[in-house]
């Protein structure tokens, strides 16, 4: 554990904890840069064009240039905005996204806070984002922003229900809400939760289809929670300009931007940590084979990043494939399909766990 190492190194728990809490940021900021680049490239290739090609080799410096531009831009605040809330909202949004990383294990050597209620902790802190969005929408004093914020809030609150139901299903199967324990136990591909988890006997095989359903439900609802296409109604350009962040610019906008990409990655790794073994390798570790034990956490981190990036890629893929839903369709999917499916799934799994 890096935390223990830091405590030994510095000798002060408070400082060690502070440094420990900074570590995910070191990962998220570069990730956001890369993700923006990826998004551009993916969209371009899906539309049969090349995307940015000029700045750097295949345009790899484009994002950095963008960041520089954002930092230099004048930070405009419209005159009738509610200044304090306008200022706090982006920070709160990023805080909400960032808090989720506290419970996500990056590798066996690093987890921000090894709390037992990790999974519902993540569900809880994501409600912070809702408040932040409402705050931003209201503080902007702009009809479109407010509408976007309210839509977004309704959407996130609704889609939290299927997420929590799937989390309950996981709790029934594994008996634990601790993501670290969960990942630690899924040591190889056959022990991944989507393939029945690390239980034994008939149970393990009987629940496989329901785990798959659970994963699909969870992916869809988390997608809606982070407002990605096809659920990006809050920021639908054709209707609401840019939703709650219409009035934002400069560094504050960058904050929202960062929060969005952090959120994307957070839900991706959440799904992978629950169902696909998290940081665990599906096969085994080179470190084990060649006998270098410090290599293992690094390898695990690689796997973690690969799985997360894969889901991020899937999100982008969906964004450029599917059309946007209407508001009523959005609510219909949640209340008429996802919630009943996840309840049924939960009940069936519970019965299987009891009966088999």
């Amino acid at each position: 554990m890096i935390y223990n190492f830091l405590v030994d190194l510095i000798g002060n728990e408070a400082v060690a904890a502070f440094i420990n809490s900074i570590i995910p940021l070191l990962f998220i900021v570069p990730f956001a840069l890369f993700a923006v680049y990826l998004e551009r490239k993916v969209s371009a290739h899906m539309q049969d064009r090349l995307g940015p090609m000029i700045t750097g080799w295949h345009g790899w410096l484009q994002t950095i240039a963008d960041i520089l531009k954002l930092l230099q831009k004048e930070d405009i605040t419209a005159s009738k905005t509610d200044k304090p809330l306008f200022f706090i909202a982006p920070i709160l949004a990023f805080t909400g996204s960032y808090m989720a990383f506290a419970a996500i294990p990056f590798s066996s050597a690093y987890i921000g806070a090894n709390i037992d209620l990790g999974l519902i902790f993540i569900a809880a802190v994501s409600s912070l984002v809702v408040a932040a969005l409402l705050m931003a929408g209201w503080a902007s004093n702009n009809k479109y922003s407010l509408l976007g914020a309210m839509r977004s809030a309704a959407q996130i609150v609704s889609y939290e229900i299927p997420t929590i139901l799937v989390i309950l299903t996981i709790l029934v199967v594994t008996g634990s809400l601790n993501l670290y324990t969960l990942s630690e136990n899924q040591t190889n591909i056959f022990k991944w939760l989507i393939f029945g988890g690390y239980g034994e006997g008939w149970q393990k095989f009987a629940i496989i289809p329901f785990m798959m359903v659970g994963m699909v439900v969870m992916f869809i609802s988390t997608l809606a929670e982070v407002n990605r296409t096809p659920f990006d109604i809050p920021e639908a350009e054709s209707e609401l300009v840019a939703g709650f962040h219409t009035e934002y610019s400069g560094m504050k906008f960058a904050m929202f931007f960062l929060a969005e990409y952090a959120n994307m990655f957070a839900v991706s790794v959440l799904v992978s940590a629950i169902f696909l073994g998290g940081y665990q390798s599906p096969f085994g570790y080179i470190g084990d084979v060649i006998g270098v034990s410090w290599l293992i956490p690094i390898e695990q981190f690689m796997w973690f990043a690969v799985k997360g990036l894969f889901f991020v890629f899937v999100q982008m893929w969906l964004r450029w494939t599917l059309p946007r839903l209407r508001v009523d369709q959005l609510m219909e999917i949640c209340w008429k399909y996802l919630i009943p499916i996840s309840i049924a799934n939960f009940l069936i799994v519970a019965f299987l766990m009891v009966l088999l």
Partner: protein
Amino acid sequence: MDMYAVMFYFFAVVTIASAFAVVSTKNIIYSAFNLMLTFFGVAGIYVLLGADFIAIVQLIVYVGGILILLIFGVMLTNKITDSEIKTGWTQVLPAMLVVAAFAGTLLGMVLKSNWRVLPQLQQPVTGLADIGVLLVNEYALIFELLGALLLIALIGAASIARK
């Protein structure tokens, strides 16, 4: 002062200050967001009391549910754009007197009572499983009734708001 005390004073101050702000601000939206801060402070106090699960439920239900509802309520019952959502007080003086009297009584009771306190406190543990077992055994009836109540409230709220 150990870490525990520091944390306690921090959360207590956050809670009370933000609650005071809730009561005293004119702007309802500010009140609402201050209320969120209060909820966070209370959640922190729960954690200090070893009730992690309650703290998280507090966050999910209060911040994720009730607070959002309240903000929606504010936004739906006021003209929101281009005007400030302000609201005043009524009968401040009698209210202050009565609440002061009440506070005095409460204080008196808190100080006068002979609280039964265990000499040795057990270490706070999550105990989610214990809470679950209690819920479906001793409190099963209440648990079921609350489920029914929530359903009724859902239907009732929908039908009242719809009229």
